[in-house]
């Protein structure tokens, strides 16, 4: 057992940190978030060509780097710290994960190299206000000749208006819950798809609504088995939750760091405000949250890694993902909220960055289940003796 970064993992983390501190400055983030696309295409191209980040955990046989989830999480933590605006999360943490978990040999061989080459992707499954479980899938699919016909709508789709490749869930008519769900992969420009950008409170990550109206796909678009895809989709979502938690730990850390920097500068009553105990104690509580969150995250990263490799630790993915997502959601919100308070009036301005973290904390908290959603999932395991997927 060695629950610390290896030298190589540390290097990946450090490289991400130094690159992002240069390219994902406050000005760059603000410029990107003001656009509908939400990121700078030239920068994304640079990331794909020079850094090769999009390929991090794609197997080498498909042209990727073949690294694991711990490396991915180390990088995501830095992206969260610097509020990196890019299609990385949607493409890698939703798209690649879905292909790795549910894609057939042919689908992986076709799409993973395309992603390595710079194509973007995302996953759509949830309808409006339907929660984050299997009930959220309301779009329908029906056999249509050799292929399928998909109808219905999806909301909260990360980068849904810009992604080039879509993975979508739909259910057979008259099915409910975990039953009857299928997963498909298709190009975003397939006829019948309307994609609408949804303006969001957190402008650093873009969301869209997708409406499918009589969209027809071939039989080769089906991922996994027709009507039995929920366990795979659930696994993809748990992998994505670990990735969101990484973003949250990075953001919670940066909320603390920029706040402490400010406290050390600002003078009131003839002393730097960092010298007041009420302020010190709040900062200490913030550090506790982020360090405990980081412990939860790294454990979940190891579990996610084994879940993808087929190791025995991977069986604990549901629990580890819920623990990380529940704790890190609360920790990020706490740190960013305290951060605003400790900044005083300037914390309420758009000029200071703490507000960006505060908004990102809320959007990441909501996405894929907030803390109480995940606590209830754990409670079902503990108290009702249910095996929860």
């Amino acid at each position, binding site marked *: *057992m*060695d*629950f*610390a*970064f*290896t030298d190589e*993992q540390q290097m990946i983390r450090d490289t991400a940190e130094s690159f992002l501190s240069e390219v994902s400055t406050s000005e760059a983030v603000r410029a990107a978030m003001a656009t509908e696309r939400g990121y700078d295409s030239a920068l994304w191209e640079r990331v794909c060509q020079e850094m090769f980040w999009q390929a991090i955990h794609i197997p080498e046989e498909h042209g990727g780097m073949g690294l694991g989830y*711990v490396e991915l999480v180390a990088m995501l933590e830095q992206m969260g710290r610097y509020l990196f605006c890019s299609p990385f999360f949607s493409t890698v943490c939703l798209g690649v994960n879905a292909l790795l978990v549910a894609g057939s040999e042919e689908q992986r061989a076709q799409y993973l190299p395309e992603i390595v080459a710079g194509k973007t992707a995302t996953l759509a499954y949830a309808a409006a206000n339907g929660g984050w479980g299997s009930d959220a899938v309301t779009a329908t699919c029906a056999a249509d000749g050799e292929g399928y016909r998909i109808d219905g709508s999806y909301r909260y789709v990360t980068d849904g208006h810009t992604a080039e490749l879509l993975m979508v869930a739909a259910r057979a008519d008259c099915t409910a819950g975990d039953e009857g769900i299928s997963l498909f992969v298709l190009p975003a420009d397939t006829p019948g798809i309307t994609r609408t950008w949804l303006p969001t409170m957190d402008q650093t990550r873009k969301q869209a609504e997708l409406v499918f109206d009589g969209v027809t796909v071939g039989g080769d678009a089906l991922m996994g088995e027709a009507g039995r895809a929920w366990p795979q989709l659930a696994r993809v979502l748990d992998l994505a939750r670990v990735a969101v938690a990484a973003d949250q730990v990075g953001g919670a850390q940066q909320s*603390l760091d920029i706040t*402490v920097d400010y*406290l*050390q500068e600002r003078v009131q009553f003839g*002393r*730097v405000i*960092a*010298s007041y*105990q009420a302020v*010190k*104690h709040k*900062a*200490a*509580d913030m*550090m*506790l949250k982020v*360090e*405990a969150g*980081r*412990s*939860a995250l*790294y*454990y979940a*990263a*190891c579990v996610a890694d084994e879940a993808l490799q087929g*190791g025995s*630790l991977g069986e604990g993915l549901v*629990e580890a993902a*819920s*623990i990380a997502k*529940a*704790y890190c959601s609360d920790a990020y919100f706490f740190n960013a909220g305290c951060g605003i308070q400790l900044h005083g009036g300037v914390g309420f301005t758009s000029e200071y960055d703490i507000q960006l973290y505060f908004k990102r904390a809320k959007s990441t908290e909501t996405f894929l289940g907030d803390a*109480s959603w*995940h*606590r*209830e999932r*754990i*409670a079902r395991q*503990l*108290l*009702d003796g249910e095996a929860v997927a």
Partner: protein
Amino acid sequence: MKLSFSPEDEQFREEVASWLADNLSGEFECVKGRGGPGDEHHLVEERKAWERKLHEGGWTCIGWPKEYGGRGASIEQQVIFNEEYARAGGPGRIGHIGETLAGPTIIAFGSDAQKQKYLPGILRGEEFWCQGYSEPSAGSDLANVKTKAVFEKTDEEGAGTWRISGQKVWTSLAHESEFCFVIARTDPQSVAHKGLGFFLVRMDQPGVTVRPIEQLTGTSEFNEVFFDEAECDASDIVGAPGEGWKVAMGLLGFERGVSTLGQQMLFQNEFDAIVKLAKANGAAQNPALRQRIAEAHIGLRIMRYNSMRMLSGGEDGSLQKEAMIYKLYWATWHRNLGKLAMDVMGQESEILEGAPYELGRLQSMYLFTRSDTIYGGTNQIQRNIIAERALGMPREPRG
């Protein structure tokens, strides 16, 4: 990062588990899940006998180097031992102050003679220790100790006797202990951290008086200890006179929290009892309590992951950030667990098991958790330390 254990370690796990299955039964059935803070006063003789049994199997002080009678167990093996001990329902260790504080201090800073004299008793589970730090005027401000140690030389070689006078307070388990490690002022002119000595003092002597203090639980696990010219041989000071602070603090960095895993196992037992009760009395259907039970579970898991990070941390022994939050984290978590236990008990939480003040296990745990955020550095002191040492914020002004 790697969380799996090697085949040798897994074999070690089987060895521990089967020994515990064979031995934590019969006459020791009654100590299962007992002891630890809040339950320290129960089944004391039985638990002392269990300590000796552990020694027979070679399961005390497993992290100590082999030359001192330990197993020289790796961090992984110590983790495994604690996990299996928890799984088997092993009782709270009555010898933990000796095994995890006194012993390692003596190993790191003590003389050969001290090692020969004191380590075997700890190892055999026969001699128990208490910690004589706090005084009426030295609580959070520990360096303010007033207890004095005066040296009477008997020859020019340095032989002689220290005479210790003063008062210690809140001394846990002093009434069950053979020895106490005491910090006292060797230089009467000195203030704060300077001029202190670290003494190994025999409790059974005319100069030492132990007076139990009744706690809010109605029981007495800690005491006042009065020293009136208590004797301590010249050979029983650890380090030089004046170096007591360094010795007292020195271990914190190296220890990296292996012993905390032993504590987590007790927490797990308590948590399991709460879950069982919630299922039995219907509290498990209450949505608000479900949230808090899940939160407690999440908190305990993270405590474990955090210790695993601590244990894998820097080889240089420096205290890392995850180690600096540890006390504040667990104490606050446990205090919340106490409250949760009462809320799960519901209306029955008020009703005692008997007169005059016979607390049930969860009730006693609940009351006792109020001390977790006080002893070993209060939550406020922990926050000062985190803000100053980890975040580099200005130090508190001193009076």
